[in-house]
């Protein structure tokens, strides 16, 4: 896909031809777009981050191999050296304007910190659970992100926090307490992400908060927690649509807050539906109606602003149709009937999507920021 800069430049040329703006304005617009484009991640910096992730993985796996040719103290010393050289070297390179390599070095240092935690566990045969180690690693990485004001490190810390939530969540039955502490961790990381200017971290945080809600609903009571998740998400969506500027000031995620609202709403509602799915009475019909109404409302209210939101809505709509079909009609038709109905549903869906997409991209309508 063409970059933002090249699209703007093509548009500006067209506007000059159409006589909307003069050549000077076009040059100024192109220059501004180019400057903005440069500030976002370039190809080189993405490669640098990927290289750093590979180095990090290499460190972790090397530790896991427990290779005896190098004495332990040597391995510990090497990791300490990587931590020190990574953080300090990265800072020096940052000052010399090598941003991408600096961020990469910081990521390697953070990985070495995690590797050192694992190595100590291995050296002293600590059997305590992995989740504790990952949490410690997450705290260390958060501190590093804040101290160095690094977006990628913030992203790393959020990823570690989400991993922790996932691991604690799936092995929940072994533990006495639900990981409520995640809310606190998420709040801290949210604040840190403002300081480090990392909107991607906030996206991941919002998704993990929805996951947290789903986990909580599954562990306690779906019918008590999932409605709260759906209602809260709907409220977030409403707030983001009604007061976009206030929402953007709060979240600063390129106007994509409604997308997260929709995902949360669908997650909560579908959980409710699965829970009450067995008795296909009026409760099921009511939730189905609420979900479909919610999806349509989302497209009408915010669909024009974001293609990402539209696609989440389509997927949700398709899944919902399948669910209604399975619960309500399953008993009456055989497999052939199901395929026939599925074909009709998909066809109708395709027509609907094509029509909506056409409408949304009518000339004169500006396409919002895309996910």
């Amino acid at each position, binding site marked *: 896909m063409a970059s933002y800069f090249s699209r703007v430049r093509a548009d500006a040329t067209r506007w000059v031809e159409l006589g909307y703006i003069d050549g000077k304005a076009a040059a100024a617009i192109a220059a501004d777009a180019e400057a903005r484009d440069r500030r976002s991640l370039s190809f080189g910096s993405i490669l640098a981050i990927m290289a750093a992730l590979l180095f990090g993985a290499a460190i*972790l796996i090397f*530790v*896991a*191999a*427990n*290779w*005896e040719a190098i004495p*332990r*103290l040597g391995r*510990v010393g090497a990791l*300490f050296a990587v*931590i*020190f050289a*990574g*953080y*300090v070297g*990265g*800072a*020096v390179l*940052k*000052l010399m304007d090598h941003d991408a390599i600096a961020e990469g070095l910081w990521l390697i*240092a953070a990985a070495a*910190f*995690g590797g*050192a*935690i*694992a*190595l*100590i*566990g*291995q*050296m*002293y*045969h*600590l*059997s*305590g659970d*992995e989740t504790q*180690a990952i949490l410690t690693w997450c705290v*260390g990485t958060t*501190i*590093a992100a804040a*101290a*160095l*004001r690094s977006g990628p490190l913030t992203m790393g810390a959020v990823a570690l926090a989400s991993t922790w939530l996932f691991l604690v969540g799936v092995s929940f039955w072994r533990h*006495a307490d639900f990981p409520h502490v995640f809310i606190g961790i998420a709040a801290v990381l949210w604040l840190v992400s403002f300081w480090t200017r990392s909107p991607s971290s906030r996206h991941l945080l919002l998704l993990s908060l929805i996951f947290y809600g789903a986990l909580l609903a599954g562990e306690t009571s779906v019918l008590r927690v999932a409605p709260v998740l759906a209602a809260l998400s709907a409220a977030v969506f409403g707030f983001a649509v009604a007061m976009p500027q206030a929402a953007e000031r709060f979240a600063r995620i390129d106007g994509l807050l409604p997308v997260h609202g929709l995902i949360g709403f669908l997650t909560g509602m579908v959980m409710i539906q699965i829970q009450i799915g067995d008795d296909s009475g009026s409760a099921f019909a009511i939730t189905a109606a609420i979900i479909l109404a919610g999806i349509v409302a989302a497209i009408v209210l915010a669909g024009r602003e974001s293609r990402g939101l539209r696609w989440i809505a389509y997927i949700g709509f398709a899944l919902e149709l399948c669910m209604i079909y399975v619960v309500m009609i399953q008993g009456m038709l055989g497999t052939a009937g199901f395929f026939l109905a599925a074909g009709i549903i998909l066809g109708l869906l395709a027509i609907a999507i094509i029509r909506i997409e056409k409408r949304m991209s009518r000339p004169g309508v500006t396409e919002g920021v895309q996910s």
Partner: protein
Amino acid sequence: MSGQRLVLAAVVLALVQIGFLSWIIMGRAAVLRNGQEVVLKVEPIDPRDLLRGDYVVLNYEIRNVPVAIVSNAPSDGDAARDTPIFVRLGKDDDGYWRARSASLRAPAGQPTAGEVDIRGIITSGPFGSELAYNVGYGIDRFYVPEGEGRAIETDMRERPFGVLAAIAQDGTAQIKALLDGQTPLYEEPLY
């Protein structure tokens, strides 16, 4: 952020993280250096840790602590998971240390000479005909170089294995060596 402050922040950050890691190492080394030595009987189970590599899972004989020997256990034996338990160990004639008595939450007085308190956490229970708690001591894994775990586990099924552990004043246990009968397989240096 000005240039010097960023470098300073990086140096401080690196030292804080390294310091934190060293502090953990020092604490663990201290247990090995000063702790009371005991030999515990073990049986094998298996698998592999993603971050830390191959290890042998050790199933300690003292993992089962009968409710009957726990001095302050409630009458029905019910105790919440994760409750700390202090198990008093004494040496038997065959050289292995076994549970003499135990106490929930805090040790019951000072151990006499030839006895030592090990700190564990109730992981489940009580179960069984003779009600017993399942207790974890934080020493259930022995990490080995890649690929060596399986062989040890096979051996462990054939003859008795033991663990030489060091126990600190506060009851924290730490593995010192894995014993094949009386022969240490791997001896753990302090660092």
